[in-house]
């Protein structure tokens, strides 16, 4: 286990809800992340899949140290992130980069592609100006953008090309981990495959670890070495590689797979669709948070909260039925 690059142990992030006109009192909290543990291994991809409001983007912010956990611990390279010196924090900021969902809003419209990609290098102050220019040209080639792209502005590129610029920017300072928050969900289907292939090539070439966050289980399946399924702030199933897709155990994982549109008219829809909506994380249901929507719910599901249990090697499920 010592090979993990980043470890999350029972992390929680609760956002207080305040009310009152003169005296702001805490009246409750949104349990965005409620006791989640997982490891990101060197050069591997950990995928987090879940619907909106399940807390996956909060985890992205916590992993980038843009926000702090309410409880629990995060260690990076063996050091607890709370004990980082300012020099260590600066180093962390270089070695962990991010690519966000919307390449239309994550790139400054006033900077050229070259300036966007060069920015982290300028901040790092390790390269001369001519060396930066060379590095930018090299990065453009790595992400498959044409020569001369550095002088053009984001609006001159298509969505897929913009995402390539965002990837080049993340690669600029040789990171060890990239947080990919819905990297392809804003892109057209035909372009998605291109970007996923590019991300895999980059991982193979540079040995970068990924934390991939997506709502699309097909994207996560294609990219991840290990996958965690989240529902209302908790992991409900964690498994390696194909285990999750070949033998999904948790009813929610099954429902996510059933919701994937079939790829051929003859293909039978597998499993049941979930009825109802995702409950509010302010008032999560008692017991198992899925029980009001779960087709297999029993009496104890409404009372007792299931813990994650190992059901097969490296395969954890949080459900009373296992």
């Amino acid at each position, binding site marked *: 286990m010592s090979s993990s690059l980043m470890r999350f142990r029972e992390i929680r992030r609760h956002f207080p809800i305040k009310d009152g006109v003169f005296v702001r009192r805490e009246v409750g909290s949104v349990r965005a992340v409620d006791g989640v543990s997982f490891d990101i291994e060197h050069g591997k991809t950990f995928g987090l899949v879940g619907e*909106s409001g399940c807390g996956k983007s909060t985890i992205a912010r916590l992993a980038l140290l843009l926000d702090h956990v309410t409880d629990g611990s995060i260690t990076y390279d063996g050091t607890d992130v709370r004990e980082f010196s300012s020099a260590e924090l600066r180093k962390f900021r270089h070695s962990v980069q991010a690519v966000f969902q919307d390449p239309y809003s994550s790139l400054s419209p006033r900077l050229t592609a070259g300036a966007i990609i060069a920015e982290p290098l300028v901040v790092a102050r390790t390269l001369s100006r001519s060396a930066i220019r060379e590095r930018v040209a090299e990065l453009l080639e790595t992400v498959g953008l044409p020569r001369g792209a550095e002088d053009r502005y984001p609006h001159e590129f298509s969505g897929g090309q913009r995402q390539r610029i965002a990837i080049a920017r993340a690669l600029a300072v040789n990171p060890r981990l990239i947080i990919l928050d819905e990297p392809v969900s804003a892109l*057209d289907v035909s372009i998605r495959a291109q970007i996923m292939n590019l991300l895999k090539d980059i991982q193979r070439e540079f040995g970068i670890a990924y934390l991939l966050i997506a709502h699309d289980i097909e994207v996560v399946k294609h990219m991840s070495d290990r996958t965690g399924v989240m529902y209302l702030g908790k992991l409900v199933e964690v498994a390696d590689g194909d285990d999750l897709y070949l033998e999904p155990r948790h009813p929610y994982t099954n429902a996510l797979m059933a919701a994937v549109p079939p790829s*051929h*008219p003859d293909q039978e829809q597998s499993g049941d669709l979930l009825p109802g909506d*995702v409950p509010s994380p302010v008032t999560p249901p008692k017991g198992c948070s899925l029980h009001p929507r779960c087709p297999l719910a029993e009496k104890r599901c409404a009372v007792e909260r299931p813990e994650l249990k190992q059901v097969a090697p490296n395969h954890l499920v949080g459900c009373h039925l296992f």
Partner: protein
Amino acid sequence: MAHTQSANNASPVLEVKNLRTHFQTRRGELKAVNNVSFSLARGETLGLVGESGSGKSMTCFSILRMIAKPAGKIVGGEVLLDGTDLLKLSEEEIREVRGKGISMILQDPMTSLNPLISVGKQVAEPLHLHQGLSGSSLWDAVREVLALVRIPAPERRLKDYPHQMSGGMRQRIVGAISVSCRPRVLIADEPTTALDVTIQAQFLKLLKDMQKSTGLGMILVTHDLGIVAKNCDRVAVMYAGKIVEIGSVRDIFDRPAHPYTRALLRSLPKLSEKHDRLPSIEGQPPDLLDLPAGCSFQERCPHAMPICRRQEPEQTEIAKEHLARCFLVDEEAEA
């Protein structure tokens, strides 16, 4: 406007013929919809598939004449709703058609609902305007359509504002508004893109159920071929403002003829298969202001021939009601 409701179910409810919509831009004329023709039968669902910028949304907006003026203009063609050409109607007459003859569901339920008006009032508005209902009969009708889209406890929800509802429930409200006046055609433009995956499947099922009970014709716009497989009877694939292939859902999935359709199908990730690399369509979507001479897909096409760079392919019939614009299927074409 008096509609002559055709008793003949075989005649299409909607026919679009050679529709062309152009936009004037600083860089020149943009042909967003370039000679698009298709028909829609009663109770049928036509999938309109393509990448962003392929003209699928503009085709839908053109049908209801909701093109931003003066930049955009419908420059030609016919849109026949039960034989009446919508492009020839006066402003007043087309307003009658919107919501009553043809209605529309847009992608984002947060922006298509008014945040300052309760959902009950928003559902009531078209019923009042188009059906002339008022008083208790109006509110009975509102409750009825809310029940149709399976809003739990509709009575309690009438006074709610959109922000008090989840995304899936908001989209169901939009669905309720769009079917409230019993339109003959429903255009759903990426209706599930903004919804969560488990809610997506729910909403698509609801649309199909509503269609079954009302017999309306539906145009389902999407960039996701997966959604098409189970929900559509026929499919039109658009590329650069043109329909490049149209056929039954079987034709498209089992016998795709156009290289673009084939590439789209290949790039669908499949849960049941493990690829190390996904097959992808190389290159970028074309710039509509700078289209090459000949076929618009030539630069990304693995089968491009010299003729594709000179001449634009015509629509060719491959089998009954299965058409494609490609020289590969045009036997008279010489490479």
